[in-house]
């Protein structure tokens, strides 16, 4: 049966005009979102009700896909249990690393008696990772908690073994986290036992090896060695002090002969992040 094609004459805007309109619109949006938050709030609200619920579902499908070789019947039960236990492990290792840090700090405080305790218990909330940046350039991921759970931009994200990243965008039920291995991430940090400050910056070239680069280490007395622990520094304006980042895996002298740089192995396994903890506390004195 042949269908007769009905051709109705309809007014259509030529596509190049539409392109011009969209171009103008996008540039306006870029400027607007760069300077204010007026537009992104409603849009991220829409995303919370459309994209994010599906991501949650799909992510669990993806997880099932990777572990389909396992026994399906036990799998769900074990996964649930595992998740609960993993949270517990995260909490405990966080506590443990906090205690280790406290020990270092105690030694220091014996010298400077009277200094207020910085490493108080942070109020954290657990969140699941539900999606990752679609491109291959950056390491940004989505978590399933948002402003409704008290999260805000610039809050630190950790796991039990160390710093994961920082919240860059937040919607009602989701937040996107830029991890510290992301190429555009910079964290002001310090070597734990010598208190030398360094700059830890993610580098796409090192991601496949799972390393991060650190720079600007001014180590005149040559005291810093491979294996030293690096933690977030006191002078960082966004990161809370004393969170474990990782351990130095190589040190090189810079061409200027004054500073050193090298790589460090992060404490967190960025290839397998399932659940994270968000510290519901912004760095003191940090106000927009």
């Amino acid at each position: 049966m042949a269908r007769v094609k009905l051709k109705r004459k309809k007014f259509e805007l030529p596509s190049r005009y539409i392109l011009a309109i969209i171009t103008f619109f996008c540039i306006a949006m870029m400027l607007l979102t760069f300077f204010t938050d007026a537009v992104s709030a409603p849009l991220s609200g829409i995303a919370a009700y459309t994209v994010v619920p599906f991501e949650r579902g799909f992510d669990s499908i993806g997880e099932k896909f990777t572990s389909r070789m396992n026994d399906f019947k036990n799998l769900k039960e074990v996964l649930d249990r595992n998740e609960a236990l993993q949270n517990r492990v995260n909490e405990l290792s966080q506590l443990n690393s906090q205690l280790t840090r406290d020990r270092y700090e105690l030694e220091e405080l014996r010298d400077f008696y009277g200094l207020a305790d910085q490493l108080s218990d942070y109020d954290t909330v657990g969140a699941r990772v539900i999606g990752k940046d679609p491109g291959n350039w950056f390491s940004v991921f989505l978590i399933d908690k948002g402003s409704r759970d008290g999260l805000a931009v610039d809050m630190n994200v950790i796991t039990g073994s160390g710093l994961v990243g920082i919240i860059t965008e937040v919607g009602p039920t989701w937040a996107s986290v830029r991890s510290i291995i992301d190429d555009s991430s910079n964290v002001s940090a310090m070597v734990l036992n010598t208190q030398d400050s360094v700059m830890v910056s993610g580098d796409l070239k090192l991601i496949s090896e799972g390393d991060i680069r650190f720079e600007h280490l001014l180590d005149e007395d040559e005291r810093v060695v491979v294996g030293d622990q690096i933690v977030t520094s006191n002078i960082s304006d966004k990161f809370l002090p004393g969170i474990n980042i990782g351990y130095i895996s190589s040190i090189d002298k810079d061409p200027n002969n004054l500073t050193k740089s090298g790589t460090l192995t992060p404490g967190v396994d960025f290839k397998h992040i399932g659940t994270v903890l968000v510290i519901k506390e912004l760095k003191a004195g940090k106000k927009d």
Partner: protein
Amino acid sequence: MIRKSIEFLLVFFCFILQCTFFHFISLGGIAPNLLIILTSAFGFMKGRTEGMFVGFFSGLMMDVLFGNGIIGLYTLIYTYIGFFNGMFNRLFFPDDVRLPIILITFSDLVYCFIVYVLTFLLRSRFDFSYYLLHVIIPETVYTIFITILFYRLLLKLETSLEKFGME
């Protein structure tokens, strides 16, 4: 209108797939770019307006969730990719698989290059050859591989849409 809604749903579905499932099938940390396939395919199958429509929504979703606070950049890139692919609409024949592959390859390369320039080169990451070899080329190759599987499905969807008279 129904056609537009189906396209929108498709973009939506592919975006979610890209954010979640594709990370499980990524090789060496490189995942294929489904949104480029979609934008490019609708561009050359249905013309410039359609390509721009699909590209616009692909980019907008990227921007809202992963735009790092700036909305509009990816929207703009994807819209232009849809538009330029639409220019090849006249050369498109459903049976010929060469044009789609060439166009999608080229679109992905251009897309990667623009992303490199705007987000890496401007932050003084000058080592283009490294990024070309380790990100751009692997992504393109993987994308072509997915295209070969995915394109048939898209074509089937497209022909059935046309059969039901949705221009």
